[in-house]
Structures are given as structure tokens and as C-alpha cells.
């Protein structure tokens, strides 16, 4: 949509390999593509041609059945009255009964039709038209357009005056629709399902949709060609432009019709002249090229650089892994090595340790000799605390003994 309007060639209907002119593409064919919108609108619009169906209102209830209630060794379901026939006493009413009514009978007052907002419908048509101008979408829908010269395919107005089907077929073939028409013919098959017994026996694919401005015989000419449909440009139907809700129908415009599209829909600025209060849909994003936006200098200049993720790996135990211990505790392997050396005979560290040990033992011996002999032993120092009491007790005992001896005497 950001680019200048492309130019579409008009092909001569008599000699389709020749171009009679060019025309700028109407803005409507550059509408944003909204498959969701088309699908939604189609779904609702398609419901509007439905005919009601329902079971008879009285179905299953046209008996005077009544329950026999309890006490008669039968189930309590209502039973047909009377006698003399098989029907008598049989269950009635109830969806479980034979000949009874259905559960939740279908009704004619079901809401068959749906209303769709006018703007929504118009947007959907614009979107479907835009899709019909894109070869990949048309091919994706299943149309065979390999031989078609250009999309959108615009043919000079002479085609509108065709009256003979034979001629119309020739023209279409010359325009490159031969494969498409053949596809339709080949696809005729019997419908799967009950429709075949309801006057809808055959189904076939859809072919091109010819959009004209003035009907000077074209509809009658094209009518009998299998798969081909005609539509007046004033009255475009979404159900034809996007059959089944999928946009991208193969459309052939006549020159007049193509020109009229601009008159009907106008531009985004002008609004649609022929549709009161309507402007063509705008895209949600004008520039939808995300990668270009993201990689543009405007965006990149404000971003911080991409960072590597933190990875912590598996936790290892430093007490088991010497490498990790050195990483966490620098110098630990060195210190440990020194320590190890101290227990190896012959190393200077070992000698150091032994020297210290010797000195310690010497000290201890000297100390003991000085302090732990005679009255300085552990026991003696301990008992010193009890000396006073021991002396007092001894004195007391001596005094008692002296008294006793005195008493005896």
C-alpha cells in the first residue's frame, strides 16, 4: 500500500494476446487482506438464504397417552389408551418411546438469519476484491491461472456484447481460462450426502467470476458455461467473491466494470462516492515489514546490545574438586602442597615441624621438672584446699578422743 498504484493492462476481447490500453489499479484492490473478516461475514451472510425446517409441532404427542402410575408392574411412562390393538398400552410421548416425540423438537422459530453490519459487509467485499488481484491467493484457492496473462484480468468492453455461448467460451479460452474451465468440467461428481436425493445431485468446482458493467448479452452467453458466473459491478456479492469464506476467487473484469470500481469505492482520502458514509478499510499496520522496522537505524540506535545469558552450569563441590577449590580459594592448592610436604620425610618443611615438636617437648619437660615435683603435683595442690579443714577435723577428733579417754577414766 505504500507504493505507487500499479497499472493494469486491458486485454482486447477479440484478440487477447493484444493489449488495448492500461488503467491504474483502483484503490479498493489494495485493501488490507483480512481472511478472518471475510470468513466471519461470509458465515453470517450464508445463513440468510436458509429455509426453515422443523418437526411437526404435534409430532409424537398426537395420542391421548397417560401414565398408568404405580402399582401395575410397569414403568411409569405415559401409555397409549384403549385396547384391541398393538398400540394400546405401548409407551408414548418421551424421546425414549417408540413413536414418541424427539428430545428438544426442532422449531421453525430458530434464528435462521443473521444481520451483519453494513460497513463490515462492505469491508469484506473490498477485502475479497483485493485478494482476487493477488495470484498466490487465487492459486491457493484452487483456480488454475497459469495461462492467464495478468491478475487482475481486465478485458475490453466488447465482451459485454457477446451473445453466443460458443463465442464466450472461445474468448475465455483465449484469455487463458481453458485450464480453469476444464477443471470445472472434470470436477463434476455426485454429491456425498443426502443432498443427492434432494435435487442437489451434482457438485462441481467454481470457475471464473466475470464482473461486467453493462449487460449486452454477456450473462446469457456465459450462463451455460459450467463454472462461470457473472456479476454486475454495482451488486457484488461476498458469497460469490469469497465462496465458502475463502477469498481469492478468479475474477475477470470488463473495462467498464474495472473503471467503475474507482467510482464506487473511491480512495482512502475521498471516501466511497457511491456508498454513503463509507471509506475503504485501513490496514492495522501501514508498514508490515517487521524485520525491516526492527533492523532500521531508528530502532536499532535506541536498543542496548544483546547480552549473553547467564549460565551457571552444574554445581560442583569444591571440597571434592581441586580445580574448583583453586578457583574459589586462590592459593589453596599451593598451601595444601606445602602442608603435604611437611609430612614427607626429608623435606625442609618436615624438618621444621620436627624441630618445633622437639622444642615443645623440651619445654614441657623443663616445666614439669620445675613445677610438677614435690609439693607442686596435681594431687598435692588439689588437696591444699582441704588442708585447713583436714587440720580442723583432725584437731576435733583428737579433742573428742581425749574427752572419751577422760570419760572412761
Amino acid at each position, binding site marked *: 500500500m505504500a507504493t505507487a498504484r500499479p497499472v493494469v493492462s486491458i486485454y482486447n476481447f477479440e484478440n487477447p494476446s493484444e493489449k488495448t490500453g492500461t488503467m491504474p489499479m483502483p484503490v479498493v484492490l489494495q485493501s488490507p487482506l483480512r481472511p478472518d473478516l471475510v470468513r466471519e461475514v461470509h458465515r453470517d451472510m450464508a445463513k440468510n438464504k436458509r429455509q426453515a425446517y422443523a418437526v411437526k409441532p404435534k409430532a409424537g404427542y398426537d395420542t391421548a397417552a397417560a401414565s398408568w402410575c404405580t402399582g401395575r408392574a410397569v414403568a411409569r411412562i405415559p401409555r397409549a389408551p384403549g385396547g384391541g390393538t398393538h398400540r394400546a398400552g405401548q409407551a408414548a410421548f418421551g424421546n425414549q418411546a417408540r413413536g414418541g416425540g424427539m428430545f428438544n423438537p426442532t422449531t421453525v422459530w430458530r434464528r435462521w438469519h443473521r444481520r451483519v453490519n453494513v460497513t463490515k459487509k462492505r469491508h469484506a467485499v473490498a477485502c475479497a476484491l483485493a485478494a482476487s488481484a493477488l495470484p498466490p491467493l487465487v492459486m491457493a484457492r484452487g483456480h488454475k491461472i497459469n495461462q492467464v496473462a495478468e491478475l487482475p484480468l481486465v478485458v475490453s468492453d466488447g465482451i459485454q456484447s457477446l451473445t453466443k455461448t460458443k463465442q464466450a467460451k472461445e474468448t475465455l479460452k483465449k484469455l487463458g481460462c481453458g485450464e480453469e474451465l476444464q477443471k470445472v468440467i472434470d470436477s463434476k461428481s455426485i454429491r456425498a450426502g443426502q443432498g443427492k436425493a434432494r435435487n442437489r445431485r451434482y457438485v462441481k468446482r467454481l470457475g471464473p467470476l466475470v464482473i461486467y458493467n453493462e449487460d449486452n448479452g454477456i450473462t446469457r452467453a456465459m450462463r451455460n458455461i459450467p463454472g462461470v458466473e457473472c456479476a454486475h459491478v454495482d451488486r457484488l456479492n461476498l458469497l460469490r467473491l469469497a465462496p465458502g469464506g475463502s477469498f481469492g476467487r478468479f475474477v475477470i473484469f470488463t473495462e467498464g466494470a474495472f473503471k467503475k470500481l474507482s467510482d464506487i469505492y473511491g480512495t482512502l482520502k475521498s471516501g466511497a462516492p457511491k456508498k454513503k458514509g463509507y471509506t475503504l478499510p485501513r490496514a492495522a499496520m501501514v508498514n508490515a515489514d517487521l524485520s525491516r522496522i526492527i533492523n532500521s537505524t531508528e530502532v536499532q540506535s535506541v536498543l542496548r546490545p*544483546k*547480552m549473553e545469558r547467564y549460565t551457571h552450569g552444574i554445581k560442583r*563441590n569444591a571440597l571434592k574438586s581441586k580445580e574448583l577449590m583453586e*578457583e*574459589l*580459594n*586462590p592459593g589453596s592448592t599451593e598451601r595444601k602442597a606445602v602442608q603435604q610436604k611437611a609430612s614427607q620425610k626429608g623435606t625442609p618443611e618436615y624438618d621444621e615441624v620436627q624441630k618445633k615438636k622437639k622444642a615443645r617437648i623440651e619445654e614441657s619437660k623443663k616445666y614439669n621438672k620445675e613445677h610438677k615435683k614435690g609439693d607442686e603435683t596435681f594431687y598435692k*595442690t588439689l588437696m591444699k584446699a582441704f588442708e585447713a579443714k583436714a587440720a580442723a577435723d583432725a584437731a576435733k577428733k583428737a579433742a573428742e578422743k581425749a574427752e572419751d579417754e577422760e570419760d572412761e577414766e
Partner: protein
Amino acid sequence: MAERYAISKVNVPEGAAVPELVKMKMEKEEKLAEEKKQALAAKQKAREEERAKLKERTVAYEKEYADTAAELVKLRREAKLNGNFFVEPEAKLIFVVRIAGIMKMSPKPRKVLQLLRLKQLHNGVFLKVNKPILNMLKLVQPYVTYGYPSLKTVRELIYKRGFGKVSKQRIPLSSNDIISDALGKHGIHGMEDIIHEIYTVGPNFKQVSNFLWPFKLSSPKGGFVNKRHGYCEARGGDWGNREELINELLGRMN
């Protein structure tokens, strides 16, 4: 930060036409790669300096531990010599382990255990010994066992089961960088710094202990005696203060 730039190499086939955007990207990546190289070199240099300092500090710490232990021995001997009693210094550091599960926990002890970050069975935390902590422990006595860890226990816990809280995540202490980033502003740059701060209950104990995620210990090999009763009861039990004997238990739980 520049050392973590993710540089993507764009492989351009020989002689191929390079699209404009790809060219722009290549130029940008080149510049970033340059910055990254410089940052990495600077980081390497800083790392080497830091490691040298850490090495010195570690040697000083080991001397400090040896000296304090020797000092205590000296004081004990002196006291005995003089016939005095040596009053052992009160413990400054305790390690608390949650013994009870989470079911049927009264609200008050439950709250206290939450505050102490003991939210799971066999979780352990280091705590400073002060009046408020002792009062809190009083409330949760039957649900925890605690005691005074030795240097060996502290080292082993931190090296084997040390995880740090880095932007609310539990990150293993696999590198001193993690510690430096989190605690650098308190002068703690490595494992030995953490161990020193914890064991000696330094001025930044709170920050360091909070940085350490609560230790998730295994159940003790050889089992508990009886979790339903207190350690100090005659019949034998496990909860409460078991002072120095916590080291034996932690040796089996670590």
C-alpha cells in the same frame, strides 16, 4: 556489562552480494566485538588483581583463626595455672536446622520459622547470637535444633551447599564473581571472605547471611535420636540447643 555482549557471526559466502541490512548489522557487531574484547581484557586484569588480594586476605584469615584458637588455649592454661576458672567466651554464631515438617504447625512458631527463613524440613541458617534471636529460638525450640558450628563445619557447609540469592534466584556459588557482584560493596569478594564474616560474625554478618540461601541439608545418615523430645532430656531427643554437638549432626547432614 560489555563483556557479556552476544556477538552473532554473520557468515557471508565468498563473493556473494551482501544486503544492506546485513552490512549494517556486520558493522555494528564489529564495533560491539571490539568493545567486548576490551572489556574482557579489563575484566581479566581486575580478576587477577582481585584474586591476588583474596589470596592475601585468606592467608591473614587462616592466621587469625589459628591465633584466636592459640589465644584461648593460652588463657585456659593460664587460668589453670593460677587456680582460676577460665570463662569460655560465649558463642557468637549459631546454626539452626529445622527439624519439624510443615504440617500442623501453630501460627506463632510457624511465623517465627518463616522469619528465620526455615521454610522446609532440614533447612539451615546461620544466626547471630543476640537477645532477640535467642527469644525467637525460644518460641520454636521444639521444631529446631541448633548449636555452635566449628570452622570446619562452616567451611564445609558453604563450599558444598552454598547458594546465593542473586536477583531473587538461588544461584550456586560456583564463582567468586557472583559473590563479588552481590557483596562487593561490603568488602566481600570471595568464598573465604564469606566464611570469615560468618564464622567471626563480622559487621556485615547480616548481609552475608542473608545473601546465603537457606542451606538445604540431607537427612542425617544414621538418623535422629528422637525428634519428639529435647536434646537435653534424659530419655534422649533432638530439639533445642545442643551447643558444640551440632557439628556432629551437621557432619552427618551435610
